[in-house]
């Protein structure tokens, strides 16, 4: 029960505006010492060491570095505004470009902290400079930055493969269509919204002196170098030159090379970029460390057993089970980290689902979609914190909270579609 009270207290404390990471850590400290004594915190060095040795998370600083360099050299702006120009007089071009770039990054990493922050650095300033609505901008970035969780390679799918005993390759294949549909629906949403409210996403200004053809050609030329960089990153993974994590270093070095080519390079720029990178990286990892203290206290005071008890009360009939299981995961996603969910909840649900003859591959994709949403749901959606951490002061937490709502709705819609029409996504609900 302590775990539940702790969530409530953390929520109230967060509202006071003290840094999120240390609010998690500090609240955990009080409840931990109260319930288990100081000794409990002897586990902290081990938990920090696990983060240190989790080399997949190296993608976070490396991607941030790439994002910062692209931003400082204005190459990110060039990429996005040129892509936006390709849409001509159509509003929402920048937002759609952001989603497409997010989809490309998603295919090269599965670490949300890396892609959300990189996308925030690359596209938030550009969108705001072009008078985009703050909510639309932040919602688009959080949603497209989180795509990495469902678009392979994906950490959630690897963990689920492990927990459920399913081949990773099958999961990766099964996740492709849901990912594509999600991206498609994001774009459709932008198109519909901008038709109804063009002022939320103004079209790029059209140069009257140039023909449409000239515009398109010059835009295409401007897109090539930064796009080439992304292709190099992706290409290095697909060709096996680098692992997904390593590819993010190629991205950073590539961004520096572009800076040299465009005569934007200076040692000062690299040093400044390193400083920005360190600050943002520290922000992300401080949250991870605070959260690990929090989840430590939660589970060592019996929170995990409490969850297990609740889960054993789920109904035994297939549709009721699926719908309630999804609802439980969605609600827990508001509060708990996806790794905890995968390890605490999935092992309990899996045997029940299997006994019902539910196709585990389908079940795994449902969970993955659902857990992706957990990054976006206020109040504890980590993607929202990460973006806030790199956003200019005029973007408020509330803007980000409100901006994400339509995208969460879209994710729930896709989730419902996969539940009701698995065959659309090349799956079946039962064996």
């Amino acid at each position, binding site marked *: 029960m302590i775990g539940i009270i702790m969530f409530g207290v953390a929520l109230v404390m967060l509202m006071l505006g003290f840094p999120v990471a240390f609010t998690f850590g500090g609240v955990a400290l009080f409840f931990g010492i109260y319930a288990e004594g100081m000794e409990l915190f002897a586990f902290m060095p081990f938990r920090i060491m696990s983060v*240190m040795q989790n080399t997949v998370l190296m993608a976070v600083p490396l991607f941030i570095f790439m994002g910062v360099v692209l931003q400082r050299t204005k190459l990110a702006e060039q990429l996005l505004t040129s892509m936006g120009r390709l849409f001509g007089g159509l509003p929402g071009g920048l937002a759609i470009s952001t989603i497409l770039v997010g989809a490309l990054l998603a295919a090269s990493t599965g670490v949300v902290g890396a892609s959300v922050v990189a996308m925030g650095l690359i596209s938030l300033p550009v969108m705001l400079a072009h008078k985009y609505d703050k909510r639309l901008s932040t919602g688009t970035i959080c949603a497209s930055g989180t795509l990495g969780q469902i678009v392979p390679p994906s950490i959630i799918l690897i963990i689920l493969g492990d927990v459920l005993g399913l081949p990773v390759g099958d999961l990766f294949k099964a996740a492709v269509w849901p990912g594509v549909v999600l991206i498609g629906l994001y774009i459709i949403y932008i198109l519909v919204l901008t038709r109804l409210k063009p002022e939320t996403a103004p079209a790029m200004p059209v140069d009257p002196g140039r023909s449409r053809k000239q515009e398109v050609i010059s835009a295409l030329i401007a897109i090539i170098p930064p796009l080439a960089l992304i292709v190099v990153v992706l290409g290095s993974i697909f060709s096996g030159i680098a692992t997904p994590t390593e590819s993010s270093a190629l991205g950073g070095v590539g961004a520096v090379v572009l800076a040299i080519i465009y005569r934007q390079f200076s040692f000062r720029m690299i040093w400044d970029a390193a400083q920005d990178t360190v600050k943002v990286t520290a922000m992300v990892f401080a949250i991870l460390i605070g959260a690990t203290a929090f989840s430590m206290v939660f589970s060592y005071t019996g929170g995990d057993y409490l969850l297990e008890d609740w889960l054993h009360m789920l109904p035994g009939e297939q549709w009721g089970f699926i719908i309630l299981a999804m609802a439980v995961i969605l609600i827990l996603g508001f509060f708990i980290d996806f790794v905890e969910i995968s390890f605490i909840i999935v092992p309990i649900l899996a045997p029940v689902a299997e006994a019902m003859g539910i196709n585990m591959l389908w079940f795994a994709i449902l969970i993955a979609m659902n857990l992706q949403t957990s990054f976006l749901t206020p109040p504890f959606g980590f993607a929202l914190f990460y973006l806030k951490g790199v956003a200019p002061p005029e973007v408020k937490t509330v803007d980000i909270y409100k901006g994400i709502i339509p995208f969460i709705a879209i994710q729930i819609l896709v989730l419902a579609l996969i539940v009701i029409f698995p065959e659309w996504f090349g799956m079946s609900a039962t064996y």
Partner: protein
Amino acid sequence: MRWIIKLDEGLARLSTFCGWIACIAMILMTANVFYDVVARYAFNSVSIGMQEMEWHLYSVVFLLGIPYALRNDAHVRVDVFYTNWSNTTKAWVNLIGAIIFVIPFAYLIANYGYSFAVDSYNMGEGSGDPGGLPNRWIIKAVIPFAAFFIATAGLNMVTFALRVISGEKSYEVEHSGGDLA
């Protein structure tokens, strides 16, 4: 008041020093990963020691980055109320938060992290993999080391808050993310 200003500036220099090390580690880490990829792909040569160096550097980046980010107010806040508050109210939030959250949290990590590193030193712990790095205690010692500087950065939050309360400084200029995006 004068000594508080002196202390504040001195503590700030400690955090800046941490940031400086973290920045160097950041650049080295990028070069390290790049080198490992090129060496493996182009020259078919793999060094587990170099691969381990990657996570050693990466750990330094984020652990020593935390005190640096504290001084630069780069840690994300939920600003539902915070932005609308006066400087004095903000200062009180930061002062109390630093005293009850940051400093005790950092103290416990430093305390247990110290035995963690000493134990490793006494065992002469090294990597168990072929060609891996020796002296595991060094990277483990970064945990208490960083925690110590997180504590000093916490104290720094207090001194800065006192300066704000006295009216000599304000929070306006430095806000989450700063000039980042």
